[in-house]
């Protein structure tokens, strides 16, 4: 499938409800219960009752939670369509919701994620995208291991420096300081970044997100239905994905050049270029993800990410505001489930002190492991 087929889906679906619970540590609740909390908030935001939702897409979370067979009974619904997407990291779940609506399986779909992995003690002590049977004996643990290799290679090939990388963590923390939902609101300086300890060198502690509990839910429906709901619709202007597991046999695979395939599809699908993006969101479990994706989506040249992010360009008031919520590095981890809610708030004009003036078009770029990528372009 190519851009022409994807373009046929342009503006046919809209996000009409958002629910984001407080983020942090909630040992009194399960992940599934936090997903229900987020669903309730999303219903209230959309101004609809739960019976108007006839599709549910859930996302697995730590501790064998998050299955639709577990969550839908808690919602007290008998939906026409229900699914659990095991790599749900938000973009993928959103696209599946659009597909379900487009195919007639449901009219209005709630996608959701809830996790209590902080309070239930997920140590993230494996390299989940790798095969622990052949990597753990060498001490390869946590995504920081492979991410550090990708950054080191970027530094080697293009001269990227730790001083340049500081801009990502420092900027996102500045954004988080304006976000009531954010877990980390205390700003940091470039010097504090450079003096901070390494997790896996060259990645500093501020280059890594921190585990949190919380819930997130979005309600998606057809554009026609969306216009009668409480909040102004935010339309799905473009969607694209790529799965590239064969790339693990490519010597550059940690650089993830296959992400370009998504870029080649999504801008024609949305009928715009990346110059039209008013606010950009990039999944950021580590700061390496924004560095790579700014390049693969063509916001700068390959290898130029380090210099591109300097001088306030990715900050509020800059040319390309990036992760205005603070991202996973400073707002909350949530497996990337909070970037799209922030994008929707920006497009509705609800972002308060961190509002991007006149934001009309936003984009979210995410990945699943090292070999899966997706992006969504939203407009008001």
């Amino acid at each position: 499938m190519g851009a022409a087929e994807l373009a046929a889906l342009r503006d046919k679906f809209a996000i009409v409800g958002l629910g984001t619970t407080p983020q942090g540590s909630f040992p009194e609740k399960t992940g599934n219960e936090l997903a229900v909390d987020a669903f309730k908030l999303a219903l209230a935001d959309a101004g609809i009752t739960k019976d108007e939702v006839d599709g549910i897409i859930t996302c697995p979370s730590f501790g064998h939670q998050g299955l639709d067979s577990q969550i839908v009974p808690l919602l007290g619904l008998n939906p026409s369509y229900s699914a659990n997407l095991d790599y749900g990291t938000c973009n993928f779940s959103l696209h599946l919701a659009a597909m379900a609506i487009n195919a007639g399986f449901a009219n209005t779909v709630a996608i959701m994620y809830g996790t209590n992995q902080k309070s239930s003690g997920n140590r993230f002590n494996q390299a989940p995208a790798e095969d622990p049977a052949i990597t753990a004996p060498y001490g390869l643990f946590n995504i920081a291991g492979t991410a550090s290799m990708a950054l080191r290679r970027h530094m080697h090939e293009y001269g990227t420096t730790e001083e340049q990388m500081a801009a990502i963590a420092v900027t996102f923390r500045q954004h988080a300081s304006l976000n009531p939902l954010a877990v980390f609101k205390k700003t940091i300086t470039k010097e504090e970044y450079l003096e901070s300890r390494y997790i896996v060198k060259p990645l500093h502690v501020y280059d890594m997100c921190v585990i949190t509990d919380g819930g997130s839910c979005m309600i998606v429906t057809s554009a026609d239905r969306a216009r009668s709901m409480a909040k102004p619709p935010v339309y799905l202007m473009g969607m694209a994905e790529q799965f590239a597991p064969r790339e693990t046999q490519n010597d550059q695979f940690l650089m993830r050049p296959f992400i370009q395939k998504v870029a080649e599809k999504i801008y024609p699908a949305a009928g715009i270029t990346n110059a039209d993006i008013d606010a950009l969101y990039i999944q950021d479990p580590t700061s390496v993800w924004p560095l790579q994706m700014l390049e693969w989506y063509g916001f700068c040249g390959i290898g130029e990410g380090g210099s591109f992010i300097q001088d306030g360009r990715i900050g509020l008031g800059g040319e390309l505001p990036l992760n205005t919520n603070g991202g996973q590095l400073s707002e909350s981890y949530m497996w990337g489930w909070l970037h799209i809610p922030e994008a929707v708030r920006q497009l509705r004009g609800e972002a308060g002190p961190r509002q991007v003036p006149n934001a009309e078009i936003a984009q979210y770029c995410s990945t699943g492991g090292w070999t899966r990528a997706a992006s969504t372009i939203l407009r008001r």
Partner: protein
Amino acid sequence: MTSPQKPLPDVNDRHRAPFWAAAREHQLKMQKCTACGYVRWPATQHCPECLDENDNWVALSGKGKVWSFGIYNHLFNAAFADDMPYDVALIQLDEGPQMYSNVVGIDPDLLVPDMRVEAVFEDVTPEVTLVKFRPAS
């Protein structure tokens, strides 16, 4: 107090047993597809290039280069406490495949990407030998 055990590979794994048996003999061997000649790691039933199921385990040179590496300053597993800080590297073998390993015999801070390395074999238990790398002589 006994220190925790480092994770060990399953040397009897259905597909990977020949790799670990060769390591035990201080050889680096990987699967080579008899149909298309593609050399692969990790081991699989079918060749990912042509889907053929026939292969030979061939000896590799053990030579390659460091594609990249990270230096662990945060202890994720207590069994590695005595190794801190330690490197984990992605090794680009001359015959094509990549594998995660450690580069030993060098201060991790002196490693650089593209450094030439060669395989060394570390007998960690009576059954298990790990394939590691050192700067090429």
